[in-house]
C-alpha cells in the first residue's frame, strides 16, 4: 500500500499526544495481566526443572507426588504429542523434556494441585533418575569437532561436512571483490569480540490460566505477544484442532520479543485435561531467567579497511552465535544487519549458529543485530581514532542512502540514515566539552522492520462511534495509535474510537506482535478498513442523493457532493449516516486482510558520554541522545518511549547484564539481584530527536520504531568507554571488574 503522495498532509489526530485508552486501568491497578485472573475450582500448576546442564532421563517416578493429598494431576513429556514439524517438536520438548534435558532449568514434569504450597511440595516428590552427560555452554567450544553434542542431526544442508554436530546454520551475504578492496586501504583493523547472552527482562513473568475438556475444547488466558502463535503451538503440542482452542491475550507486562514463544500454556492445558479443572501456572523469576528466552551469546571477528580520508574500502565479518540448545536463524539476521548502515563496494558477512546447553534463544528486540553491529561499529570507531578522523563525518561519508546496494542484497529505497547522522552532528551534544576520564561514543543502528499477516475489522456503531477489532497484543500503546489512525481516516475525534484486541475465535489470523510491525501493519490495515467503510457510506449516500457513487467524497468526517455538478446536498456526518444505516442497507463495517510488505527499514544514531572510574572500573552514563527516523510518529510520546526504553536496555547489555554459567553448566545469576538490569539511579535523562522521512510503503509514511533503539547502545557505549579508558574494549558486558582488568592490564 503506497504512501499517500499529497504535497503536504495536515494530520488532525496523527502526531498528537492523546491519552492512551488503557491508561486509567493501568494506573489504578485494574488492568488484568496474565496472573491476575482466577476461575472457580481452579488448580495451581508448578513445573519441575532439571538441575543438570545436560543429562539423559533414565526414569521419572511420579507416584509419590500423585499420592499427595490435594494433587489432581501430574504430567511429563509423555503426556504431550510428538509433532512431526521440527519447529513444533522443539516447542513440545522445550515445554516438557522427553529423553534428554538440554540445559539447567529444562522442564521435566508438572503438577496441578489445590494450592500453590501443595504444588510446590508435590514437585519435590517427583523422582527423576538422570544419567549426566558432558555439557558445553560456550559458543567457540561448542563448534570444536570434539565438543559434547547437544542434539544430533540438526544441521542444515548449508553446513559443510566435518564440523561439530552442534553447528546447525551457515549463511553468507555480500558483494564485491574483498581482496581488491583491502588492497586499496591505508589502514586495516581486524578485531575479535565476545558478547554475553542477556534476557529481555520483562517485569511480568509468563503466566496463564488454561482449561481443556476431554472433548478437545479449550480456553487459554495468557500474557503473550501473539495469541494465534499460542493457539498453533498448543494445538500441535496437545494434538487438538486449532478451531477448538480459544486463546485470549491478557494485558502484557513487557515482552520485547520474549513472549513470542510458548512455555507453559501447553503444560497447563495437559494438566487441565487430566484433572478436569482449570489450571493456572505462573512462572517464578528464577524460572523466567533459567528457562525462557535469553538472547544469543556471540563470538565475532570483524575486519575493515579504510583510506586515510575515511572511505571504507572493504569489510568482512564472521559471526558465531549460539541460540542455546536448539537450532535458530538469528545469526542470519545478525549477518544481514552487520554492515547495513554502509554503502560498500566489497563486503562479506559469514554466520554460524552452534547449539550449547543453554535455554532456547527467544527473540529480543532486533534479534541478532545489536551484537553484530556492536562489533562493526567498534572497528569503525577504532579506525577513526587511528586515522584521526571525526567518527560522524566518516559515517556520513560511507552512509547507505537511497539507491545503495545493501550489504545483504536489496537496494535501499527512501531511508533516513543521512538525515539522522546530520541531526546528530548538528545537535549541541556532539560538541559539548568533556572532562577527565570521560569519553564520547556514537553508533549507527539498523533494523529491517516487518509487516506480515494482519486482519482488522472496523465497525461503525449506530450512535456514530467506531469500534476497531485487531489481533495484536498492545505492548507499548498500540491501541492508542490504531485508534488515532482510524480517527484520522474517518475524520472523527479520537475519543469516538475504541480499539479492542480480539481472541483467536473472534478475528482471522494475525502474526505475532514482533518486527516492529503493529503500528505499521495493523495501522495500514486499519486505514484500509476505514476506507472500505467510507466507500460504503459514500455509496449509500449517493443512492439517497440519487447521484453517482464517484460524485460523493469523504471530507472532515462527512459525505459531501464532490463538486457543483453533484448538486447542493448538505454534508452528512458519519453519525447521521450511522443513525439511518438500518434503512440504507444494514450495519456498516469495513475490514481488511493483508500480508503487509513495504515495512521500510529503520535507522538510528545514538550519542553517549561516559565517565569511567579508574579505581573501580565502574562506568557512569553522563549524557545520552537518541536520533531515529520514525517515518511518521503517530503518537510521539510512545515513539520517544520506544527510543528511551530500547536505549536503556542496550545500556544494560553494554554495562552489566549477562548470563553467567559455572563450570557445572548451571546458571549462577537467576534473579534480579545478580542479573542486574538498569535502575533509575544508574541513568541520566534520555534525550530524543525524532526524524520523519516517510516510508513509501505506508499511507501515512509510518515505519516501525520499536527495535532499532536497542541496536546502537552497545557500540555507542563501548566506543565512549574505550575512548574514556584509553583501551579498546572488545567484550560485553563491560562490567566493572572486566573494565578494571582492561585498564590495569
Amino acid at each position, binding site marked *: 500500500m503506497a504512501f499517500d503522495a499529497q504535497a503536504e498532509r495536515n494530520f488532525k489526530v496523527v502526531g498528537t*499526544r492523546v*491519552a*492512551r485508552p*488503557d*491508561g*486509567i*486501568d*493501568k*494506573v*489504578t*491497578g*485494574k*488492568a*488484568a*495481566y496474565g*496472573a*491476575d485472573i*482466577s476461575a472457580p475450582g481452579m488448580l495451581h500448576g508448578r513445573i519441575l526443572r532439571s538441575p543438570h546442564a545436560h543429562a539423559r532421563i533414565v526414569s521419572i517416578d511420579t507416584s509419590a507426588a500423585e499420592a499427595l493429598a490435594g494433587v489432581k494431576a501430574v504430567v511429563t513429556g509423555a503426556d504431550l504429542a510428538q509433532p512431526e514439524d521440527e519447529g513444533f517438536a522443539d516447542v513440545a520438548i522445550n515445554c516438557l523434556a522427553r529423553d534428554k534435558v538440554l540445559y539447567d532449568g529444562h522442564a521435566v514434569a508438572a503438577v496441578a494441585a489445590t494450592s*500453590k*504450597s501443595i504444588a510446590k511440595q508435590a514437585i519435590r516428590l517427583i523422582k527423576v533418575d538422570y544419567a549426566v552427560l558432558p555439557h558445553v555452554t560456550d559458543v567457540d567450544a561448542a563448534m570444536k569437532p570434539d565438543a559434547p553434542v547437544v542434539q544430533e542431526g540438526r544441521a542444515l544442508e548449508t553446513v559443510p561436512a566435518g564440523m561439530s554436530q552442534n553447528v546447525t546454520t551457515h549463511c553468507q551475504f555480500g558483494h564485491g571483490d574483498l581482496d581488491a578492496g583491502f588492497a586499496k586501504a591505508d589502514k586495516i583493523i581486524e578485531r575479535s569480540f565476545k558478547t554475553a547472552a542477556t534476557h*529481555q*527482562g*520483562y*517485569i*511480568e*513473568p509468563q503466566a496463564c490460566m488454561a482449561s481443556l475438556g476431554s472433548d478437545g475444547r479449550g480456553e487459554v488466558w495468557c500474557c503473550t505477544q501473539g495469541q494465534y502463535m499460542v493457539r498453533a503451538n498448543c494445538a500441535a503440542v496437545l494434538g487438538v484442532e486449532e478451531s477448538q482452542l480459544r486463546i485470549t491475550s491478557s*494485558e*502484557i*507486562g*513487557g*515482552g*520485547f520479543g520474549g513472549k513470542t514463544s510458548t512455555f507453559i500454556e501447553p503444560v497447563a492445558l495437559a494438566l487441565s485435561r487430566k484433572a478436569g479443572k482449570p489450571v493456572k501456572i*505462573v512462572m*517464578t*523469576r528464577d524460572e523466567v531467567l533459567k528457562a525462557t528466552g535469553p538472547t544469543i551469546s556471540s563470538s565475532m571477528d570483524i575486519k575493515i579497511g579504510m583510506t586515510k580520508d575515511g572511505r571504507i574500502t572493504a569489510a568482512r565479518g564472521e559471526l558465531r552465535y549460539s541460540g542455546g540448545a536448539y537450532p535458530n536463524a538469528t545469526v542470519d539476521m545478525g549477518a544481514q544487519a552487520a554492515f547495513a548502515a554502509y554503502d560498500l563496494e566489497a563486503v562479506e558477512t559469514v554466520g554460524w549458529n552452534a547449539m550449547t546447553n543453554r535455554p532456547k534463544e527467544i527473540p529480543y528486540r532486533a534479534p541478532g543485530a545489536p551484537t553484530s553491529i556492536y562489533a562493526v561499529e567498534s572497528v569503525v570507531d577504532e579506525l577513526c581514532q587511528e586515522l584521526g578522523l571525526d567518527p560522524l563525518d566518516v559515517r556520513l561519508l560511507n552512509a547507505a542512502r537511497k539507491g545503495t546496494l545493501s550489504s545483504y542484497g536489496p537496494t535501499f529505497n527512501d531511508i533516513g540514515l543521512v538525515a539522522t547522522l546530520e541531526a546528530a552532528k548538528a545537535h549541541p551534544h556532539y560538541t559539548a566539552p568533556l572532562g577527565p576520564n570521560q569519553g564520547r561514543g556514537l553508533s549507527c543502528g539498523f533494523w529491517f522492520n516487518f509487516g506480515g499477516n494482519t486482519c482488522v475489522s472496523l465497525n461503525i456503531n449506530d450512535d456514530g462511534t467506531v469500534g476497531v477489532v485487531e489481533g495484536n497484543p498492545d*505492548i*507499548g*500503546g498500540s491501541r492508542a495509535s490504531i485508534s488515532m489512525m482510524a480517527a484520522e481516516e474517518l475524520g472523527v475525534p479520537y475519543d469516538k474510537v475504541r480499539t479492542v484486541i480480539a481472541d483467536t475465535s473472534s478475528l482471522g489470523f494475525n502474526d505475532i506482535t514482533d518486527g516492529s510491525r503493529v503500528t505499521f501493519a495493523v495501522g495500514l490495515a486499519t486505514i484500509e478498513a476505514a476506507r472500505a467503510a467510507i466507500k460504503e457510506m459514500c455509496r449509500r449516500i449517493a443512492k439517497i442523493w440519487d447521484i453517482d457513487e464517484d460524485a460523493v467524497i469523504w471530507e472532515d468526517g462527512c459525505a459531501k457532493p464532490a463538486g457543483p455538478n453533484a448538486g447542493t446536498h448538505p454534508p452528512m456526518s458519519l453519525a447521521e449516516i450511522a443513525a439511518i444505516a438500518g434503512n440504507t442497507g444494514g450495519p456498516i463495517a469495513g475490514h481488511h486482510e493483508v500480508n503487509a510488505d513495504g515495512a521500510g527499514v529503520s535507522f538510528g544514531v545514538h550519542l553517549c558520554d561516559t565517565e569511567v572510574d579508574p579505581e573501580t572500573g565502574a562506568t557512569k552514563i553522563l549524557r545520552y541522545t537518541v536520533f531515529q527516523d520514525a517515518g511518521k510518529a503517530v*503518537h510521539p*510520546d*510512545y515513539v*520517544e*518511549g520506544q527510543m*528511551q*526504553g530500547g*536505549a*536503556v*536496555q542496550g545500556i544494560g547489555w553494554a554495562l552489566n547484564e549477562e548470563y553467567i554459567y559455572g563450570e557445572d553448566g548451571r546458571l549462577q545469576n537467576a*534473579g*534480579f*539481584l545478580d542479573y542486574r*538490569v*538498569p*535502575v*533509575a*539511579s*544508574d*541513568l541520566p*535523562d*534520555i534525550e530524543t530527536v525524532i526524524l520523519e522521512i516517510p516510508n513509501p510503503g505506508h499511507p501515512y509514511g509510518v515505519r516501525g520504531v520499536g527495535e532499532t533503539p536497542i541496536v546502537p547502545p552497545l557500540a555507542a557505549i563501548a566506543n565512549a568507554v574505550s575512548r574514556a579508558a584509553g583501551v579498546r574494549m572488545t567484550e560485553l558486558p563491560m562490567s566493572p571488574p572486566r573494565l578494571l582488568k582492561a585498564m590495569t592490564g
Partner: protein
Amino acid sequence: MKTIPVETTINGDSTEFLCQPDESLLDVLRDRLGMTGAKEGCGTGDCGACSVMLDGRLVCACLVLGVEAQGAEVETIEGMANGEELHPLQRVFVEEAALQCGVCTPGILVAAKALLEKNPDPTDTEVRYWLAGNLCRCTGYDKIIKAVQTAAAEMRSA
C-alpha cells in the same frame, strides 16, 4: 498447616482474612482478597512491583508475611484514587505517557506517593534514588521521573 485469622485495615476498610503462617502479604492480597493491583515480578524484593504501604512504611508485599498485617494499616494501589478522582500522580502518568506495559506502574505510583509525602520537592536525583528499587523495563525511566516532578509541582501549588 493451619490457617491463622488476621484483622487488618486495607485502604481504610477493616478486613479479616485467614492465611497460612508462611504466606506472603502479596499472596494474601492477590489470591485471597482479589486485589491484584500489586504484581509479583520477582518474589525476592528486587523489582518493587508489589510495593504497598504498611503502617506508613513503603514495603515489598512479597517480603512481608500476611500475618504481619495483624492490626496494621495497609495501603495499596487500589486505594490511591478517590472514587473517580485520580491522584495527581496517576493522572500525570497517563497524561505524560509515563507507562508503557504498565505492570510496574502500580508499584512505582505507590513508591512515588510515599516519596512526595516525605519530600514534596525532591531533586531529579532524589527521585531516581528513591525509585531505584522499582524496576521498569519499558520506559528507560525518563518519562517516569518527569511525571513524578510534574505531579510534585502540581501538589505543591494545590
